[in-house]
């Protein structure tokens, strides 16, 4: 997966590049609008991350040039301004997502992964699983080591999300948004409680823990060597 970041703030660009590279993406960085547009039009990228305010050409102009060239590559905007018109303008031009600074890197990473997945074929799985954990989407049943687990609807939805995006660190805000449709930063420990309850049912009776807390970032479902 090849990503292009167009960001004129040297530090921001550098940190983003490092973070995304370490998350397993091949990442290139342009520091101004002209270079960014040239690279976006000539390189073969899977995703563009554009800052709106850029010297030379702004993010919108680059997006327009890219769309005019007939490229359907997903575009994620970063901006320090959060005016409704800006958002509308960006979406009208064909941006796929929009993040307002300051944002958490985990949030950006989750959005990048969502955008990249959107391009691929949606998987038609009927069951999801990790290690000895099985989730049956049709019969809405969950088993761990052959034992049937009794989950509430929201716990089921939470586990489904963790399973679908296993190995990814999911920030609390993303979980709140995807499972409860709460699209704002609520800084209560609601998600912590929900995860604790899910853990109680999934992990407590087993040595092989699957749900892990990544401090300050979020939660991840993965198998870790003991």
């Amino acid at each position: 997966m090849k990503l292009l970041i167009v960001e004129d703030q040297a530090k921001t660009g550098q940190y983003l590049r490092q973070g995304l590279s370490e998350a397993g993406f091949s990442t290139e960085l342009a520091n101004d609008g002209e270079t960014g547009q040239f690279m976006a039009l000539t390189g073969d990228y899977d995703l563009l991350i554009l800052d709106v305010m850029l010297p030379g050409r702004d993010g919108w102009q680059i997006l327009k040039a890219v769309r005019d060239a007939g490229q359907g590559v997903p575009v994620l905007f970063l901006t320090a301004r959060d005016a409704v018109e800006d958002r509308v303008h960006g979406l009208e031009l064909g941006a796929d997502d929009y993040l307002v600074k300051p944002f958490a890197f985990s949030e950006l990473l989750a959005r990048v992964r969502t955008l990249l997945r959107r391009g691929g074929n949606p998987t038609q799985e009927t069951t999801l699983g990790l290690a000895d954990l099985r989730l049956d989407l049709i019969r809405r049943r969950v088993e761990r080591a052959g034992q049937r687990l009794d989950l509430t609807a929201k716990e089921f939805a939470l586990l489904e999300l963790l399973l679908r995006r296993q190995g990814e660190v999911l920030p609390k805000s993303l979980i709140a948004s995807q499972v409860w449709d709460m699209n704002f930063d609520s800084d209560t420990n609601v998600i912590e409680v929900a995860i604790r309850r899910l853990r109680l049912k999934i992990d407590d009776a087993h040595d092989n823990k699957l749900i892990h807390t990544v401090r300050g970032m979020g939660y991840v479902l993965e198998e870790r060597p003991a």
Partner: protein
Amino acid sequence: MPRLSLGVRLALLFAACTAVVSLVAGILFSRASAAHFVELDQQLLSNRLPVLQRILDGVDSPASLIPRLPALKEELAHQTDLALRVRGHDGTVWFASRSNLPDSADQTGLTTLQAEHSDYRGLGVQLPAAQLTLFLDITHHQHFLQRMQRLIWLTVGLSALATALLGAWAARSGLRPLRRMGEVAAGVSARSLTTRLPVEQMPVELAELARTMNAMLERLDDAFQRLSAFSADIAHELRTPLSNLLTHTQVTLTRPRSLDEYREALHGNLEELQWMAQMVNDMLYLAKADHGLLMPNREPLALHGEVDALLEYYGALAEDTGVALVRNGEATLAGDRHMLRRALSNLLDNALRFTPGDGEIRVSIEEREDGIRLEVANRGEPIDAAQLPRLFDRFYRADPARRAGSSEHAGLGLAITQSIVRAHGGRIQAESAAGWTRFIIELPAT
């Protein structure tokens, strides 16, 4: 039309009024005196007539008139301004005591006539064989009337001028409180918002205006105080985590440490940073609201459904602390789902934080004719009535000891809720009574 000052306007108005009044008075007086003269003249002429008639009794031709002329002239000599003319019915003049008397034809009764240099009042009488006309020279009367008219015009002009000047002076002194008001207003700046107009010293008419202006200054002062406090609070709220970050990072870097220690240090920093980012985002949201950019994307909503979703969201957390969540009532409205969820979430979050264990949080929805009333009530410590409205102030915390660095809100939650409610055209208030704290949202019918 040129813009006239109030003083000039009033002066002109006064002058015009005086001119009209004195003109009317003058005209009435002039008419009255003219009428009075006519009356006097008539009286005089009528008094003289019988004597003259007696003298002329039996005259039927110019010849028969001659013997009576001496008596006639003697009678006329008593009054020098009196003249007489006798004419036959055929129009020939039998006798005229003066030359160039005006031609009065055959009129009978009193008339005012004009000759070359004089004005006369004429009284005509029919004698059996002739017509007698008595003339009274009224030139001096007419002169008097003309002088009086000139005098009247002069009075009108002078009194108008005088009242204009007096009026200008009066208006000027009358408007002095207004000027003082202007001076006070001109002196008001961000630094002197505490200036107030002296209402007691104002005339009754201006006192109301002064009170209104004072109220405006009060509001401005209040808003400005809040703004100043807000800026100061931002600095304060950011200072604590920033100072933590600086200290923590510098201390960590003073000597080599283990990997775990570095990780721990970064985690500590991350928490502070996340808290700060959250605060900045909340503040940007409020700034947007302040600039009227918080535009609800209205869609038909079942409010009870939204409340239920939120109660489900907070359900596990409430269960952990032993707090029961209850919802009563239903209502539908056109509102922004995300915004309303955020607003209600802040209220529930707040309620959860202040409800003791085994407590209860009740959300009551009521659909009324004029709108929707939503109440979030929780059992909790009573709040001082004076503090209730301040709960919606930014960074306000009922307990000042609870400050930055904790994992809690920066004290912007209720301010955000208020902004959202206002963006929906509603209002929110807090009540505290009988061990219950209530937040009441009233939304207008859409």
